[in-house]
């Protein structure tokens, strides 16, 4: 998030000391975000989790698969900070590897939704008329389908592959994105600078990608931040039922479902994965709320 304002810096600001440095909308938003302690905590926590996930293969204390059946499940100790599971595998290591999958599903599936949703919504909103009506009617019809059930159906029929999971979840989440984008584009479309761009003979594609989309980035960023947690929740839900990520791959949802099986004797097996998942979702939601307040002060109701 922090890199956004730098792309919008005023190029003339450094050339002369007489000119008061302009503050772009992005800089304003960033300063508002920085005042929001909850959102910033969420941002730091999230950055920490992403960093851990990226570095896991190098910093994980134990091997992911090595079993030690003689040891079995042990509680937290100096050797195993978060304890071990019933196969004697280090829980911290497993949570770190599970996090890689959970976060990746969150980001990749949201990216799928982002690409489809933004293009669909932007084209519908920009072209307008009959095209718009047909495209948005399609979205309405798809919206009414019970998607959870269809994702389960897809996972059952086509095997439980990660790629399919990304696509299936992405294909659900793009609908809301398309609606938001289309609404924003309809507003931007009427602005004079778009007329100017048309008058200058720019291609429609160029106008959409270079002039329309950059001007609706705010709501898109907010929605993306709020989509990631709901996608991660969906993945955990499916994995919990045994219909999502499959062993030997692991994810937080899967770890929780293992934890449930033996929670009576070994409660830490459910508490730690559960806490990590909840805290990450917490962080994303707070960051999303903070970004909404920062990027669109009018929309925040209080």
């Amino acid at each position: 998030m922090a890199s956004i304002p730098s792309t919008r810096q005023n190029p003339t600001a450094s050339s002369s000391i007489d000119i008061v440095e302009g503050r772009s909308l992005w800089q304003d938003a960033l300063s508002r975000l920085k005042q929001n302690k909850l959102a910033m905590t969420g941002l730091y926590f999230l950055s920490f989790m992403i960093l851990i996930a990226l570095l896991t293969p190098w910093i994980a204390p134990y091997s992911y698969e090595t079993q030690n059946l003689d040891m079995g499940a042990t509680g937290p100790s100096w050797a195993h900070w978060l304890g071990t599971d019933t196969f004697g595998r280090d829980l911290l290591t497993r949570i770190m590897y599970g996090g890689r999958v959970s976060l990746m599903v969150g980001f990749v599936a949201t990216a799928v939704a982002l690409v489809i949703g933004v293009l669909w919504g932007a084209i519908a909103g920009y072209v307008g008329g009959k095209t718009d009506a047909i495209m948005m009617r399609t979205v309405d019809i798809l919206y009414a389908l019970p998607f959870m059930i269809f994702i389960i159906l897809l996972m059952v029929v086509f095997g439980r592959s990660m790629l399919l999971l990304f696509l299936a979840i992405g294909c659900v989440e793009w609908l809301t994105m398309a609606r938001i984008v289309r609404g924003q584009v309809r507003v931007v479309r009427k602005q004079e600078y778009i007329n100017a761009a048309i008058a200058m003979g720019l291609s429609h594609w160029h106008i959409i990608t270079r002039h329309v989309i950059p001007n609706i980035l705010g709501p898109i960023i907010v929605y993306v931040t709020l989509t990631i947690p709901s996608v991660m929740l969906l993945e955990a839900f499916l994995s919990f039922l045994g219909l999502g990520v499959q062993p030997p791959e692991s994810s937080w949802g899967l770890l929780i479902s293992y934890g449930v099986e033996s929670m009576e004797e070994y409660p830490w097996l459910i508490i730690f994965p559960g806490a990590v998942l909840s805290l990450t979702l917490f962080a994303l939601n707070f960051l999303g709320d903070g970004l909404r307040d920062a990027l669109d002060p009018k929309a925040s109701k209080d």
Partner: protein
Amino acid sequence: MIKFILIRLLQAVPVLFTVVLVTFFIIRQAPGGPFDSEKAVSPYVLEKLNERYQLNDPVHVQFGNYLVDIIQGDFGPSFTYPTRSVSEMIFTGLPVTFELAINALLVALLIGIAAGLIAAIKKNTAADYVSMSTAMIGICMPSFLLGPILILVFGIYLEWLPVSGWGYSDGDKILPSITLGAAYAAYIARLTRGGMLEVLGQDYVRTARAKGLAEHVIIFKHTLKAGLLPVVSFLGPAIAGLLSGSFVIETIFQIPGLGRFYVDAAFNRDYTMIMGTTIFFSVLIVAFNLLSDIIAVMLNPRLSYNEEQM
């Protein structure tokens, strides 16, 4: 108003047709037929089975037959339990799932609206922050985590409540209903707070206060109806969510409802059962969305004009 309802009803037809079509063709693509088992079946028996279940007809004929059947409410026999029909299984599981969903919805509405009202009336006080933070926890704590934790605390450590079943022993409905309802209580609390704050900021509320109306009259008589509009629109999606939430809750608490049947059917590749439940769930969800749209329009007739202009 009637025109609005008719338009909405007509819109439901292509949705449901798409559901049936998509389900049918996804199932057709399934690798491994329902009769692929570890035990080798003789080709003759397999042929007979395929004939029995009409799997040898061309695809479009099968689809046509299926469409005609389901309109008559016949989802065919279950592949896994040949002695029972899918409709029979649906109607065994449905009352249980329905009761679970209704209980959870009541929990969600009671807690959610109460917490949201308090938060809105006592805006920016400790009561507001506590209820909104709790709501955030409710949203971020998935049901499949909350359920086991509640079981652990109230069922195993404190031994207050039974940990599984539905109507088998006293109080075994409490934990599942709370687990399923918690997240929705949280959403409803946030929606109630937002809706009420917006209404309480209106000029007519200031007028009401200026002429000295008691605060409870303002809240309950003048603002509650408008303030709860967002909650009403949320009810349709909420019921859809409660129904699919039942998959997890019924698995955790071992409740013999429709959600559990669906997950079992998914594991057993019981095609007719999966199709039957998918279509049935879809009809329910479309119906509830329709209902919540209609209620929203009855509360706020302006909405129907927007719809007709589109």
